[in-house]
């Protein structure tokens, strides 16, 4: 057996249909828009900044739309994965690597050296690429752009236009169309327009910014419990209080309820901005996620470690500012007691649900309850010694480390920069504490599962290949077993690409704690035939 040559590295793409002349022209139009923006950043502007902005972004949008119509429109509706593994861009060829490095570099500058992107120093005028966004920012806020305004605008632009591309690609699949419209809507309105307009209308709350994205929630929004953030919220009157209470409701009530009903997909692939970018702009790289058992093991340790970290960090942060004067009605003592009780309740609930689930696991109970109790005990000891800092380190130390490694490096630089190298959901899979919480809920008490259609699976592997979360869907499907995985974001792509109609995302309450039962597996005999995940 000779080995199939790695075609993503070859110059002559064996899939000529991939890029016809018109498709190339469309790409050129998009690149022209990008070049105009780039020239502006380099100081070469042919028009006013406003016009340059409009022209360059219109060209980029136009390029994407034209390419979409040309490329997918010339084919019948259906699965469009021809040549994916031959493409240099999509399969870690030279172009893929270059793009990965460019995006990664951009994120590094964005987080740590915005001045290189043209961010004005100490209130000075913007230059470079950031200045391109000044006119738009003036409209919203009456002041020049910040690097975050630029980032938000680009992000929304990407989700919107690549969302259209995605919809056209999956135009035969209503689930994909509606889901994508949803992420486009949430990004455009809830994450972008409404907060920008609200803060513009309220004069930016005298510089006391707080997060007005209705769908952003702790712990993904790790700044939520920061002193300045809480203070800014509570000083902003009714609207601030509204957001404060809504945020708590979201975490403790709305989110568990929706996850119970529909699985974590309601957030991760229907609402969330990180998920939104992954599903739209990140779609060409979804197959690059690692499907190995080793990757799954790393994933489980890593994502739960981040969850634990974010929990500890939040407790430490709140604890450290609660002592400062009588400003808050909650005292350190009160907070400590509440937290210890909360942790114990969580541990007990977890153990209870694991036990209730047919495929529950004793070791997991020890591990999770152990961690919760450890955090509680440490908190108690710390309090007994009367330290001003939770966990003896300052909240700021935790926050600093978390913000740098998790908030910036992981979710931004690696999360998006590595799209072309490790697939579009690296952050969602390995790092997101929100995904970890929703995942636990999904696994333990949700109606959601992916049903396998009897014995119809032919083990082809399309589902596993195109699962962006790196779930080896086939390993369940070929045994006739339903797929119940904490990490599944319910994107529905496995079901879409399956050539035999084997997979269906569904919600059912009859069998919440026995979703992986094999009562419907098509087997030759009933005699002792059981499925074992690892066998």
């Amino acid at each position, binding site marked *: 057996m000779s080995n199939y040559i790695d075609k993503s590295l070859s110059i002559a793409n064996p899939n000529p249909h991939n890029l016809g002349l018109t498709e190339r022209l469309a790409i050129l139009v998009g690149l022209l828009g990008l070049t105009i923006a780039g020239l502006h950043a380099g100081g070469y502007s042919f028009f006013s900044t406003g016009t340059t902005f409009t022209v360059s972004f219109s060209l980029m949008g136009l390029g994407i739309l034209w390419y979409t119509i040309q490329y997918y429109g010339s084919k019948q509706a259906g699965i469009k994965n021809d040549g994916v593994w031959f493409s240099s861009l999509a399969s870690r060829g030279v172009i893929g690597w270059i793009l990965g490095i460019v995006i990664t570099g951009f994120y590094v500058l964005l987080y740590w050296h915005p001045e290189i992107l043209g961010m004005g120093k100490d209130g000075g005028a913007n230059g470079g690429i950031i200045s391109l966004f000044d006119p738009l920012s003036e409209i919203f806020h009456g002041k020049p752009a910040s690097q975050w305004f630029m980032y938000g605008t680009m992000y929304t632009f990407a989700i919107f236009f690549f969302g259209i591309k995605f919809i056209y690609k999956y135009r*035969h699949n209503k689930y994909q169309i509606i889901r994508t419209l949803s992420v486009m809507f949430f990004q455009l309105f809830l994450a972008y327009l409404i907060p920008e307009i609200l803060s513009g209308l309220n004069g930016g709350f005298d510089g006391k910014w707080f997060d007005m994205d209705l769908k952003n929630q702790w712990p993904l929004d790790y700044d939520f419990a920061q002193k300045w953030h809480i203070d800014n919220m509570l000083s902003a009157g009714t609207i601030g209080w509204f957001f404060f209470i809504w945020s708590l409701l979201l975490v403790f009530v709305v989110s568990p309820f929706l996850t119970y009903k529909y699985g974590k997909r309601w957030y991760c692939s229907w609402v969330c901005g990180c998920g939104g970018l992954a599903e739209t702009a990140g779609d060409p790289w979804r197959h690059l996620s690692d499907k190995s058992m080793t990757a799954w093991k790393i994933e489980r340790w890593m994502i739960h470690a981040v969850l634990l970290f974010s929990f500890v960090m939040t407790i430490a942060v709140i604890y450290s500012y609660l002592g400062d004067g009588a400003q808050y009605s909650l005292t350190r003592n009160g907070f400590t007691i509440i937290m210890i009780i909360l942790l114990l309740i969580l541990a007990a609930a977890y153990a209870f649900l694991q036990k209730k689930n047919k495929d529950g696991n004793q070791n997991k109970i020890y591990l999770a309850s152990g961690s919760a109790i450890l955090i509680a005990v440490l908190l108690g000891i710390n309090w007994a010694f009367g330290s001003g800092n939770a966990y003896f380190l300052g909240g700021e130390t935790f926050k600093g480390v978390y913000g740098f490694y998790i908030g910036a490096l992981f979710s931004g630089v690696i999360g998006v920069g590595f799209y072309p190298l490790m697939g579009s959901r690296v952050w969602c899979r390995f790092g997101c504490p929100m995904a970890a919480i929703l995942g636990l809920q999904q696994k333990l008490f949700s109606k959601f599962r992916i049903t396998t259609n009897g014995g119809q699976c032919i*083990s082809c592997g399309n589902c596993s290949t195109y699962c962006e979360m790196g779930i080896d869907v086939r390993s369940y499907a070929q045994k006739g077993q339903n797929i119940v995985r904490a990490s599944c974001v319910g994107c529905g792509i496995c079901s879409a690409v399956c050539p035999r109609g084997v997979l269906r995302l569904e919600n059912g309450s009859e069998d919440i704690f026995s979703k992986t039962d094999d009562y419907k597996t098509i087997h030759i005999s009933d005699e002792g035939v059981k499925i074992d995940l690892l*066998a």
Partner: protein
Amino acid sequence: MHIAIIGNGISGITTARWVRKLSNHKITVISSETEHFFSRTALMYIYMGHMRFKETKPYEDYFWEKNRIDLVYNHVDDIDFKGKSLTMKSGPAIKYDKLVLALGSATNKFGWPGQDLNKVAGLYSYDDVENMEKHTPGLQRAVIVGGGLIGIEMAEMFRSRDIPVTMLVRESSYWNNVLPEEESAMISRHIKSHHIDLRLAEELESIEDDGQGNACAVKMKNSGERMECGYVGLTAGVHPNVRWLKETELNVERGIVVDNHLETNIKDVYAVGDCAQLATPKPGRRNIEAIWYAGRMMGETAAYNICEKPIEYDPGVWFNSAKFLDIEYQVYGEVPGKLPEHLTTIYWEHPDGEKAIRINYHSDSKKVAGFNLMGIRFRHEVCEKWIKDGTSLKVVLENLNLANFDPEFYDTYEEMIRKSFAQQSGIQYQVKSKRLMDRVTAFLKG
């Protein structure tokens, strides 16, 4: 005890996995095709760039050692049934206590002149795909001989690279020996809409040699037309890969003859999958069913028998599926190409001509017998239960939504279907169940 299995396809591998679950026997799986098990049904996707070879392997490479299944990448040249020993192409012979033959199929060739030239091949093995790949650069046209499931896959493969394809199909409409008339017509239309030059009622006369041992053109039998081409795909079916065993004491007809326990005429020798021929198949079933699912079920059955837990092979209600370019197809139960006397059929087709539901039922008792689905997914377990239980057509129609397995938000065409089926069957009915998971669970468990 040492169980040797020749063939690492779905049937051989399933046997090995189940023997491992049921026992501690030493297991050796031998194959000369690829070192590791891959999904044959996914071969097309390698060429089309949907997957690499790696992705078509259902188990990671560590799996075999972990489960103590020894893999031998070698060819078995001869079997000494008396001495219970396998003569290998290279290296020492392998001794066994029990032997499983899971040899698979080979491409049919009907003695066409030129059938053994270069650039002429079937689509069965990994090598066949490599061969297609090798001859693809500069390919101006491919001719595919035979229109079955593999023929249309090969056509789709070439079309994915924009290579013009001509398909010669002996029947008057695509695959109408298996598909009923309307479905066959639908797929024939669909094939043409994908710019495949479909020649119905046409056969291969001969393949022309370019003087260097390569195929360069075909001649057609009925029109007499000569067509230049750089590749000829032979997809007129497969046969059990057993020629080398015909002269042995093993009972071989078209395939290796096995009893209901999948044992051959020689004790301790079993045959499974494409190469096995059932001595007494279930009523209405063929004695060789060269499909993935049969191989999988046989593997499991053989393992039980090998491990001294005798059970008979029972493939249950017939089911199969395929995808014709963009149209998915599923079948459950009895839906033959030509409607037999005892059955009546009702058929609904969506106006877009790419979705259809057919239900067959017994003319006298009105019990459902089979379902054919085009472009619509149906639930295997529900259809099977209806057929097994001999559910009446009326009940099935009322609850048809229970079977619907299309993704959420997909239209169920409820009213359209109701009108059409009520009119055809003369049964007036109201739709009772919605497409709800809980209803399905209750139905299946109840």
